[in-house]
């Protein structure tokens, strides 16, 4: 049982798992791309719906977590070994392991000479009862640690996002509750929209809401997205919510409707069909003569065209509260308000994915710094019970380190020969 566990652990913490799984997904993508143009979307759907593929994707964060544990353990183990603790030398801890020839155990004078040489080459040394350790440079392990945490966050985030993301599209209208809110909850008091001089964003959109009961006020901007009841508020498009009443000679009872129209920016048209009549109302937003943005100022003047089939029956312009009447046709614009078409997204994967980016950046900065300033090089010569073993590893500048390692071994061999 233990053997099985050890094997399983070795498999799951292998560095090969992540590239192998990514390769499988790439091959899957290539295969899907043979059949459809929407390969990425189809692959995402497949992963979402197929438990085997979901499990395969889950292997990625699992593997990075296991690697994190295994490599951290190995790192601490090596540190303790170099600090002189009596521990077995596990395979794979060092790049090179050379048993010293029988009778070639270094004398104190040899150790002093080797130590002197290494110190003159910039190494720090420690001579203990069981061995001599020398090291130089900064450990690259923190970069690896950060990288693995990044991988864990990235694939964990993707997995969570793919499998649990819930999205609700709704319209945010001034004076009404936010989509998905309970009665009297999260009432939008104001939508403000203005130019902004940010590095990335050119516009500033703020949705202000208040809770009449508790009096609590909240603001939802563009980025970073704020949350409402645990869901990210993700503004997508701007529009105008209109409430109108229409009547025609053959429709004396009239027809009344409220509709969010995607007619921003000015010039963009949207149509509303009057059911069972053949009439269509085509709306657009009038561009103010002074060049101002009607959405920013809130002065929403609506152009309309009344169509029956392909023929245009009437056309005009209306402000909120205005009414048009001609030839038996009447159109009253009861209200016009700013609307934001918004997605409310519950996705616990977003934050980890962004965090992953931060971890990768940190890992890169640390790794570059270490490589430039001085990568870690370690050398350990240990003797226990008459048997000697020389161990060496280098994270960079390996050639020079090996020269010193070989020289130390040569000196030990020379001294013991004489």
């Amino acid at each position: 049982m233990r053997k099985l566990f050890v094997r399983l652990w070795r498999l799951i913490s292998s560095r090969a798992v992540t590239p192998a799984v990514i390769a499988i997904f790439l091959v899957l993508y290539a295969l899907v791309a043979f059949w459809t143009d929407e390969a990425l979307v189809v692959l995402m759907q497949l992963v979402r719906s197929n438990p085997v593929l979901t499990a395969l994707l889950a292997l990625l964060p699992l593997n990075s977590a296991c690697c994190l544990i295994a490599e951290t353990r190995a790192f601490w183990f090596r540190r303790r070994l170099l600090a002189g603790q009596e521990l077995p030398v596990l395979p794979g801890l060092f790049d090179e392991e050379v048993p010293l020839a029988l009778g070639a155990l270094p004398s104190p004078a040899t150790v002093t000479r080797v130590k002197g040489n290494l110190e003159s080459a910039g190494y720090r040394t420690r001579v203990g009862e069981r061995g001599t350790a020398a090291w130089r440079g900064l450990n690259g392990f923190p970069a690896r640690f950060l990288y693995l945490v990044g991988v864990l966050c990235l694939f964990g985030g993707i997995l969570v996002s793919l499998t649990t993301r819930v999205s609700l599209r709704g319209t945010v209208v001034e004076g009404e509750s936010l989509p998905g809110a309970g009665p009297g909850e999260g009432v939008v008091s104001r939508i403000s929209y203005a130019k902004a001089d940010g590095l990335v964003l050119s516009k500033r959109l703020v949705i202000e809401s208040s809770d009449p009961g508790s009096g609590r006020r909240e603001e939802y901007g563009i980025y970073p997205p704020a949350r409402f009841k645990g869901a990210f508020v993700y503004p997508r498009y701007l529009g105008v919510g209109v409430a109108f009443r229409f009547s025609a000679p053959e429709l004396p009872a009239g027809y009344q409707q409220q509709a969010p129209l995607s007619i921003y920016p000015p010039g963009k048209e949207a149509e509303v069909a009057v059911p069972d009549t053949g009439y269509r109302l085509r709306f657009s937003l009038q561009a103010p003569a002074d060049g101002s943005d009607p959405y920013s100022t809130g002065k929403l003047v609506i152009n309309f065209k009344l169509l029956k089939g392909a023929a245009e029956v009437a056309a005009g312009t209306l402000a909120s509260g205005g009414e048009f009447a001609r030839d038996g046709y009447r159109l009253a614009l009861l209200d016009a308000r700013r609307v934001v078409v918004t997605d409310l997204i519950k996705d616990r994967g977003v934050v980890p994915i962004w965090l992953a980016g931060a971890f990768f950046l940190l890992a890169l900065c640390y790794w570059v710094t270490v490589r430039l300033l001085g990568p870690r090089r370690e050398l350990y010569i240990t003797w226990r019970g008459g048997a000697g073993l020389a161990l060496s590893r280098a994270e960079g500048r390996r050639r020079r380190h090996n020269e010193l390692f070989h020289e130390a071994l040569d000196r030990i061999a020379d001294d013991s020969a004489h």
Partner: protein
Amino acid sequence: MAVATIETSGLTRSYGEICALKPIDLSVPEGEWLSVMGHSGSGKSTLMNLVGGLDRPTAGALVVGGQDLSTLTEDGLARFRREYVGIIFQQHHLVPYLSALENVMLSQYFHSVPDEAEARHALERVGLGHRLKNRPGELSGGEQQRVCIARAIINSPKLLLGDEPTGNLDHKSTLMVMELLKELRAEERFTVVMVTHNEEVAAWGDRTIYLTDGVLVREERTRS
């Protein structure tokens, strides 16, 4: 009986009409120190060049370290020189723009790959551990010759050739160099062939041969 490092039979070298080395039969056992004496133009350097693979014989057999040099291609000869022979010249031939350490590393480079720690160790062995960064112009004649020795032995040659290595040195430096060579030979067990005018230098060898006009005229064993 020791295996012969150098074995020649009817070894001849002519330059057109001039015969620089007349047929010579010579055997140098492994680990021997052979001194070669003679006047200018007697064929000493010709013999050394042939033995070191720097030149090809006109006739005769020449086997060094078990390899018949007359049958080797140019690449094979270069490989032989690189891996088998170390040479010390009278004129040093050190690169003036490189430090003592770099001069030794240059020899490593042509042999295989440089190894700074090993080059430093070789210079320490010839007593120049404190002069690693000095260029040849900043070293005395004796010190330069010691750099040459470090350079010659760095690739662990089986055969060390010396062409008047002490010709430019004063008596004290000569003694120091010869003492060093003796010590190194004891440690590394290489064979030495040393061309010299100097009877005193020749006397450091195990055996001395005398050449006159390209002919081996005499040989005598040195009293130990």
